[in-house]
């Protein structure tokens, strides 16, 4: 003798439900949700997945799914259940994640989440209960409302030219390559319900086996929203709705996908492992005891994009860092970018650095004419300006400033490539400021230049710039 009893995946008593009737559901007579819930719970029992299941309730009548299912529960924002489900599955691939959604939630406000979770082939199961109406909010038009169907927002009936057509999600999603299984079923007749039961099981089994995304659209009833009695509602589903929402399997790759194909790994936090990883990010040199610094450097380096202006700043910054000094580097950003110059600000100091923006530099490098025109006036009296005289034709004010003009690009060509003109300039900056010993700079550059084949060229370029300032050649 078969004993009928409540599925163990349901709570015995619905304690989370408010009000007195804690053994009945909150659903209206003739509503399809209760039946569909029951079939899901029974499938969870049979597949022995309840303990590791997470049920994501949407916004809509099934917002209270968590009243009933005795498993981990999330209540998600309207339309966002597939995003929440995605994250839960990715953060615990062993969990069985169910996104249970109505038509407004899945096919209107959550269309993007629905399509993209499907398109990523998330190994989750989506149960889409399509009853062609917004039940919870008072019978408004749903994306699946039928042409001519009256609702509180289509009092004269849904009209194609005003409201568009009912949307067929199963057909749409079946065009995507990633989903494994997409079927539309219904709960109108006993035979349909049996098929629904099979489809629900199949979808969850696909997830359990790591075979990927499964989607079951269940055409269901809403007697209250439709303003019909339960029997008339059932008949309308069978006679009318199924003409627009034909039943059937729209995609099934479950026999062609290997078990475990869509399993993704996730590792929890292991502090030692993260520590080892972060340690690899450290700079390629040790920071020395704080070296002397003749005076703070407030530098602006400017030129065309591609001249290595930003790299020049980075090299000097790392030299300052290795020397134990406070350093900031900031690339031109926002309105400063206009006018054809790339530039960066570098501060080096033994004291805490205030503004990372250098608006009054004591060291200005210009590698093109617009930069000279734009920034010379900002240099503090007695400050240094270094000019690549290969490119810049204008002359800086030698009365007010310490002007160093050197044909850096030509000198770089002599080394072998114009690309190292910035390092020629670096030599000039170091020599003109006496900030660091040349050997200290060279050993730093050796550590930070990643391409070994370029090191000799850069060393030569640096020395040329340095010697030019120190010895005038």
């Amino acid at each position, binding site marked *: 003798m078969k004993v009928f009893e409540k599925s163990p995946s349901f709570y015995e008593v619905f304690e*989370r439900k*408010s009000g007195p009737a804690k053994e009945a559901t909150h659903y209206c007579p003739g509503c399809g949700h209760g039946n569909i819930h029951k079939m899901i719970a029974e499938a969870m029992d049979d597949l022995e997945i309840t*303990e*590791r*299941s*997470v049920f994501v309730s949407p916004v809509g009548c099934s917002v209270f799914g*968590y009243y009933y299912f*005795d*498993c*981990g*529960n*999330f*209540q*998600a*924002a309207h339309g*966002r259940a597939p*995003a*929440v*489900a*995605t*994250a*839960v599955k*990715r*953060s*615990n691939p*062993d*969990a*069985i*994640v169910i996104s249970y959604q109505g038509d407004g939630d899945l096919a209107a406000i959550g269309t*993007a*989440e629905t399509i993209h979770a499907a398109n990523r082939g998330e190994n989750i199961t989506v149960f889409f209960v399509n009853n062609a109406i917004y039940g919870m909010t008072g019978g408004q038009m749903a994306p699946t409302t039928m042409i001519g169907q009256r609702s509180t927002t289509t009092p004269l009936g849904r009209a194609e030219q005003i409201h568009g057509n009912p949307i067929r999600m199963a057909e749409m999603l079946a065009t995507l390559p990633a989903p494994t299984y997409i079927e539309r079923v219904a709960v109108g007749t006993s035979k349909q319900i049996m098929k629904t039961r099979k489809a629900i099981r199949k979808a969850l089994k696909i997830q359990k086996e790591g075979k990927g995304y499964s989607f079951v659209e269940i055409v269901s009833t809403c007697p209250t929203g439709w303003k019909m009695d339960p029997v008339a509602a059932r008949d309308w589903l069978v006679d009318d709705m199924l003409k627009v929402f034909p039943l059937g399997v729209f995609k099934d790759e479950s026999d062609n996908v290997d078990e475990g194909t869509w399993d993704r*790994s*996730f*590792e929890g*936090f292991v*502090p*030692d492992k*993260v*520590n080892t*990883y*972060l340690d690899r*990010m*450290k*700079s390629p040199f040790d*920071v020395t005891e704080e070296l002397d610094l003749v005076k703070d450097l407030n530098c602006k380096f400017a030129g065309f994009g591609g001249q290595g202006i930003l790299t020049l700043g*980075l090299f000097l*910054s790392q030299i300052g*860092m290795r020397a134990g000094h*406070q350093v*900031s*580097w*900031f690339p031109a950003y*926002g*309105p400063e970018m206009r006018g054809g110059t790339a530039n960066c600000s570098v501060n080096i100091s033994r004291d805490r*650095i*205030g*503004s*990372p*923006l250098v*608006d009054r530099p004591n060291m200005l490098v210009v590698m093109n004419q617009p930069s000279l025109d734009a920034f010379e006036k900002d240099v503090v009296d007695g400050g240094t300006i270094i000019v690549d005289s290969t490119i810049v034709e204008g002359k800086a004010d030698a009365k007010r400033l310490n002007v160093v003009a050197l044909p850096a690009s030509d000198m770089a060509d002599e080394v072998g490539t114009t690309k190292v003109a910035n390092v020629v300039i670096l030599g000039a900056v170091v020599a003109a400021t006496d900030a660091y010993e040349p050997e200290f700079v060279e050993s730093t550059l050796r550590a930070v230049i990643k391409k070994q084949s370029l090191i000799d060229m850069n060393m030569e370029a640096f020395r040329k710039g340095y010697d030019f300032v120190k010895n005038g050649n």
Partner: protein
Amino acid sequence: MAKQFMKGNDAIIVGALAAGCRAYYGYPITPASEIAHAAALHFPALGGVFIQAESEVSAINMVYGTAGMGIRTMTASSSPGFSLKQEGLSYAAGAELPCVVVNIVRGGPGLGNIAPEQGDYFQITKGGGHGNYRLIALAPNGAQEMCDLTRKAFDLADKYRNPACIMADGITGQMMEVVDIPVPEPIPFDHSSWAADGTAATRKNLVSSIVLEPEELEEHNLKLDAKYREIVENEVLYEEYRTDDADLVVVAYGVVSRIVYSTVDQARAEGLKVGLLRPITLWPYPEKALSALAERVPAFLAVELSTGQMVEDLRLAVNGKAPVHFYGRCGGMVPGGEELLTEYRKILEGGRS
């Protein structure tokens, strides 16, 4: 200690990894995209999750999912994207989920531009989404703090079960400085009583922000409010520089505090007794410290990259005890030091004589 010269945006991810953040969900937007770039590189390499979501809305709801499992998770965006995350943040606050959201604020309103601004102060500190809730809001002003405050944000989020926000700007994000790479520590929080992570141990747990009965929802709101009061009591962070004898205390946060810091000594050199108070937590705001200063400081000045947002909190804190001035630039314009010194002179010469 291991050091590296790095961008503020990259330092955020270093801080997050050290904090034990295991999942990053994001959507590209300038000037915050580099955070996603770093996350895409490092999270999967460490066995964690990175998903480029289909929208900002999805990204914050993915954060909701992982946060609801008691696993540290984050997202980052910039102003227009942060606006889109408000719904998710309200849900996360309602469901009491710890998570971290970074906003590299850019010029607004609307699409605005990608230059630095602080016009999202109201949105971040006053709630932003619907309902009675607060975000814990931290405002780093350099690369080291981008790392350290991100890490701290995770701890605060866990401690109070509430979303925490890092409010920074494009300059702090793009700027490179020397960062001490932190050493990760185990996370001292147990989430098994509320998180739903798809295991037998948490089977009975529910992650939800719905509370149907008015009596119960009022109770829930009051519980949240008590938690927020506790945060106000315990978690205020700020920094003072030469406020002891100041005739003018300038209040500024983020990159602006760096510019003001540079001007304090310059002002003093010309005899203007200027000091700086920098809120590090924007919410909770250093109200008590400012209120105490207002007992003896003759004038205050808020400097912001906005048309005047934080200044309202400053006025509330000073509460009429001293004049509160405001100087702001916006749209991506950043005040220079000389510009600020001119303001100090105007206030001190006008206000004191």
